[in-house]
């Protein structure tokens, strides 16, 4: 199942940056990776992903480059900029605090507390 729109708003950029931090990817690849690596929880449609990519690029958190893939097709690859990495670090610590706080509240953590 997919996450609610409001939650996705905050999680989207971090997720994309995190994936791209590991290696450069092109749009379709990213869509697939999001769907695969998060069990579809954080999957986003192209309608969300591309505008998000453009927005992150406009903010200087991502950079893009047209390159020939091994198959010989030209694709647009996205990579994290130093500024994006910095942003990701800041966001990661915030998420970590959020998770800790929510765990403390009993919302997260012990699997057995789930119904």
């Amino acid at each position, binding site marked *: 199942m997919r996450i609610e729109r409001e939650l996705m708003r905050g999680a989207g950029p971090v997720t994309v940056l995190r994936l791209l931090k590991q290696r450069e990817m092109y749009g*379709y*690849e990213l869509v697939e990776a999001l769907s695969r690596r998060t069990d579809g929880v954080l999957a986003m449609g*192209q309608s969300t992903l591309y505008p998000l990519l453009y*927005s992150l690029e406009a903010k200087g958190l991502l950079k893009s480059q047209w390159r020939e893939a091994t198959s010989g097709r030209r*694709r*647009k690859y996205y990579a994290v900029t130093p500024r994006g990495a910095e942003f990701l670090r800041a966001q990661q610590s915030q998420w970590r605090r959020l998770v800790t706080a929510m765990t403390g509240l009993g919302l997260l953590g012990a699997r057995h507390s789930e119904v």
Partner: protein
Amino acid sequence: MGATRIDALEIEHRARMRGLPLDAAAAIARVLAAARLDDARRNEVFEELVTHFEDGLGAGHSAEELAREFGLADFSPSPPTPIPLPRRGNRPMSRVLPDIRYAIRRLIASPGFTLIAVLSLALGIGATTAVFSLVNAVIFRRSPIRAVEEVTDVYESSADFGFNAFSYPDFRDFERGTTQVFSQLAATRFTFSQVMKDGVASRAQGELVTGNYFPLIGIRPALGRLLGPEDDVSPGGHPVVVLSDGYWRRAFGGAPSVLGRPIEMNGRAYTIVGVVSAEYHGNLRGLSPDFYAPMMMVNHLNPADDDQLQSRGYHSLFVKGRLRPGATVAAGAAAAAGVAAELRKIVPDQWKSGDTFKLIPTRQVILFPTVDQLLYPIAGLLFTVVGLVLLVVCANLASFLLARAVDRRKEIAVRLALGATRGSLVAQLLTETLLLGALGGAGGLGVAALVARILTTADLPLPFPITLELGLDARALLFATAVSVAAGILFGLMPALRASNPHLATTLRDESAGGGGRGRLALRHALVVAQVAVSMVLLVGAGLFLRSLESVRAVDPGFGREPAGLMEVSFPPTRYAEGRLLLAERQLAARLRELPGVTAVGMIDNLPLTLVNTQNTDVNTPGVQPPAGREGFDADLAVVDSGFFAAAGIRLLRGRDFTPADADGAPRVIIVNEALAKRLWPGQEPLGKHITRNRDRDYQVVGVVATTKIRSIGEDPRSGIYLPLAQARSSSVWYLARTSGDADRLTTAMVRATQSMDPEIISVDVRTMARHLDVVRLPIRLAALVIGALAALAMVLAGIGLYGTVQYSVAQRTREVGIRLALGADAGAMVRMLTGGGLRLVVWGGAVGLLVAVLLARLVGGLLFGVPALDPLTFFGVPLLLFAVAGIAAWLPARRVSRVAATEALRADG
């Protein structure tokens, strides 16, 4: 959705050409057409989405599935997910830049509009900036004086002169009597001197300063030292000089080795002791001196008939004093009043009852108090005029933009529907007008620089060289920027607010058939009315000054009707002492008489209408009482030779002209003008009467000449006396050579003849008679020229605005006109109806303009000449002219519609 629909179809087509199925192509087209992207960006996104679909299809997804994922994505550059980022304003550059790019695209798309807008803005902003830099240079110049708030100007004041310069003895007496109040008191005077350098004579202008002057103003030398009290002790004993930075660079190539070197001035070697820093340009604004020398050298550097350090008759000193700590201007005035009372007792001949001193804080003086009184109204008038022109420009552009807003209604409706906020739309529209403002401002700076260049290099017939620092300094740049931004907002905001009004934009879905938009039309009409009103005001102003110019031209100065060359000559005093001077002067006159075309040559020491003519004297005649409270009759004095009246064309009414027999030692004779003769001896024979001058020297009247204008072209007849050159010699003299040929060519020949006689004699000033007389007409001529040019510009702009408005309303009514014509209406009547609509606006604007013009005319009345402020010809002729021009502007587009065939008109509803 016009343009958007076309874009979508085109994109879809391109995607299909790349082999994508219809669903995929349509999805790409849908999101791209709705996105606000520039061409390059759009192409890039297009490519990326195409590869995305190719990848998806290759992975086995269906086109329909992939397309559904797209939904209604917003691919505009604005982020769908707000991400908090440090150091970012509400409107990040990522949103402003596309606005600017988009604005540039739109401006390029309509080059005609852009060109007219930028040109008219450039003219409006340029004129405003030029006036600002002029006012900046003259009025707002920062004083170079240290702690200027402690310094005050001091002037003498009498019944004749509200403000007058000091004589040297007056200055010393004043200094002695006010030591309690002033810690320092200093005086300067202007002078011209002849400088010999490498065998070439040239004229340098300088300032003679008392010892305290440089210490008082507190500036530093760029090189060597400045002058101090030790340089100003004994008369004629301090041949030292300090150069200005400009002269040092011009004449000595800026070499530091000038220190200690001699420079030959008026035939005597002066030692160069220093160079003033480049920021200092002398005591009198606009008159940049080449050198500064001690006041004690005045009799050598500025030779006169009497000792200027002793005589109270030479009023040329400008005095400044630094108040002691705690002393007020009022205390200074009280001390000054004490000195004046003393002087009235000691020297009653020079100090009449009522003569006194006036103190004005230096910061409040621009040039000279009496001149300053004129500067503010002139500056105000100039600013009003250029401001009005700029307003017309803005009104015109606003009007154009309102018309264009109609074309953009659909685009704006789409954007609003897609969720754009009104603020972002206004920002986008304002970006466009601000861009226009910036372009206009850049052009305006060019125009202002050009005007400044013309002003500083213009060969104006001025009485002496004036240097204005008219550069476009930081202040002027700031001003131009502010004006450009203000203009961009002024003409852009109203159309932007109107265009982005969601109620208007969404409801006006399709009104190309005409009819709607009343509010917008009313606004355009108001703008046309305003433009016509402003044009009317400017045209009336131009008319009044043109009529003044006409009256000035009509005044007969009483001399110089024939073409003639004029040359002021200075003989080096060392080479031409007492006896030899007159001989040399006559010798030069004889040489000039031999020049081809010359019919008569005369000499005069004090040429009438030079603006610096101040030579006057008290005269008395036995048996006639002078006016109450006066020692004698005030008369202007000139010294002439026997050829002057004939050469100048001044009629001899009675008696005889001077002759060579009126030599030094012969009986003293005098020629009076008609005005003085009538005043002293009304109804009597003036010939043979006696006149005393300053109550001592006695002269017999031998002739009466016609009265000429002496000080200004507008003056009432002034009393004047003429003395023969041989009996009252003068150190500098004007030659007037009348010619039957070309006066311009003659002046060159006159200078050559002078140099060939002795290269050390300098021609101080050379001009034709016509140019000389232009001096007195210059202010009015400049006013007529400037206001006339700006008024013409405003009228043309208003004409264009009216043309546009009528054309717009005609276009809106094409269908209506077509139907009427088809139903058999008279084409002429249709044209009259449409023209009449435009002319109604002109009548309104004209009426408002005339009313304002009546009020303003009274204010500028003092600057006019020989024309009543409410001159009937101007107030009748100008509206006629304006209506004629407006009539044509309204008729042209109206006529066009009637020529359109009825069927065509009916079709014209696209």
